[in-house]
């Protein structure tokens, strides 16, 4: 038992890191095209899509969790789909938790990227086009490097927010060791059991982790943004 963490704690930490890491990667892949579209479209749907993406910012986790549970459940469209594909049902599995996290953390990834792309404006893309760069080329050689601070912020916020998730986990994932029992749930368990010493180890680590992440964000980003 190193550093005062129990094996169960370490398992929860590893699970949390895996969940947050995968969520961040998925969100960078899914969120970037959404952010791109939101930043550049003149469609009237922009407001609608923007509002949907932002919903998790204002909704209680229980509401999000409740509907995700219904959608992924045996009668829900996603549940029907996963069942017909032979995957079974997603609630109370790691993958169900991952899917929920992607929704729940989406605004934290989409919005910084969207802001960065909006701030870039049309000009660098036009310049690249006059220098023979096609659309994909323009994206990877102009947008990504110039919007890097935005992507950086998005990844950090997406990761940190998934680590800090609790309500949705309880609703969708429950409390299954190795599959859905993440750090925040583990802490909840300790507190319920009045095991404050163990709770302190994990809770204190979360405080330190979150502080370091935000510190990194606020100190590194202005530097990156300078050019």
């Amino acid at each position, binding site marked *: 038992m190193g550093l005062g963490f129990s094996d169960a704690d370490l398992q929860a930490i590893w699970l949390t890191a895996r969940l947050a890491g995968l969520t961040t990667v998925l969100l960078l892949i899914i969120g970037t095209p959404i952010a791109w579209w939101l930043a550049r479209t003149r469609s009237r749907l922009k407001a609608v899509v923007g509002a949907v993406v932002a919903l998790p910012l204002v909704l209680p986790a229980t509401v999000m969790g409740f509907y995700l549970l219904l959608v992924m459940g045996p009668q829900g469209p996603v549940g029907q789909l996963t069942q017909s594909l032979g995957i079974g049902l997603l609630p109370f599995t790691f993958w169900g938790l991952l899917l929920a996290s992607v929704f729940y953390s989406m605004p934290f990834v989409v919005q910084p990227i969207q802001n960065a792309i909006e701030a870039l404006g049309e*000009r*660098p893309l*036009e*310049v*690249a*086009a*006059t*220098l*023979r*760069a*096609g659309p994909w*080329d323009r994206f990877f*050689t*102009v947008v990504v*490097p*110039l919007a*890097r601070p935005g992507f950086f912020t998005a990844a950090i916020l997406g990761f940190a927010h998934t680590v800090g998730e609790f309500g949705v986990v309880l609703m969708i994932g429950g409390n299954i060791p190795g599959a859905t029992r993440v750090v925040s749930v583990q802490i909840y368990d300790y507190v319920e059991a009045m095991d404050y010493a163990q709770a302190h180890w994990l809770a204190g680590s979360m405080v330190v982790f979150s502080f370091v992440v935000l510190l990194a964000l606020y100190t590194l980003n202005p530097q990156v943004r300078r*050019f």
Partner: protein
Amino acid sequence: MAQNGIQARFALDYGDFSLKVDLDLPGRGVTALFGHSGSGKTTLLRLIAGLNRTRDGYLRVNGVLWQEGKQFVPTHHRPLGYVFQEASLFAHLTARGNLAYGMKRAGNAAMGRDALDQAVELLGISHLLERRPHQLSGGERQRVAIARALAVQPRLLLMDEPLAALDLKRKREILPYLERLHDTLEIPVLYVTHSPDEVARLADTVVMLEQGQVRTQGSVSALFSRLDLTLAQDQDASAIIEAVVLSHDDHYALTRLKIAGGHLSVARLQRHVGELVRIRIHARDVSLALDEPGTSSIVNILPAQILELRELEQAQMVVKLGIGSSEQTLLLARITRHSCDRLRLHQGQSLFAQVKAVALMD
């Protein structure tokens, strides 16, 4: 059958702004798209670049179709170079990286390197290549941007007011480079500007735009001497004349120039004999005499014919003159209505133009 030059037909209507042009532009030399802001000159340039798109446009550049009906070659497949009003260098790349960006994509690395070296040399930026855009002055940035556009070996160079965002000092810094461009480039250049001075210095042909329409198109000297345009009515109205250096007189520090229909003596120019120069004679520096002035301190007295007269505000007149027998050289004179009446000036009259000052354009 390949047709040379640039044929462009565009029509668009944004409600508060509409554009309708049908142009046939020369396939080489500098063509200025000249007009006030809102005249549609930048929009026209962007349509030619493919950065803006109209449904029923037609564009052919030196025989190659770029747009017709549904056929539309996207910007990145058009062999053009584009210089924006702000240098718009990529902030994440050095000056060299900016130059290499287009060169790499334009293909033919060996020829590209030559084009790059040439562009670097032409714009005098070899000492700036390792710097990032934020370490360059506004003028230096714009020079790198021009070199970047040249390094892709374009078949057509488009420049959108490349000097407009710069202060006077930076403008003076860049103009010589643009003039070198004018002298060395073999490709057609479309140059958007609202500055008569830049037109006079750089352009061979001018397209004057007004409210999205072509007001007139012609040579620089013809445009500057059109009395119905504001250029000739302005305080700074002047004639732009091409001249050849004939000889130098070192004793009096004078240079003798040949113009169509006559000669001019000007202060000693640092130019070789036989070189072509462009000069500017302000209308306010030209006075008129009915008889040849025998004794005068004015050296340049040219026989002329009145082609046209026009009244201006405040009892001023502007007179368009043809020099020599064939009237190939056009000159403007700005005089008072009082003088005009006293000399009984009228169209077709022969007289003498006294030129008090001649300015070299480049």
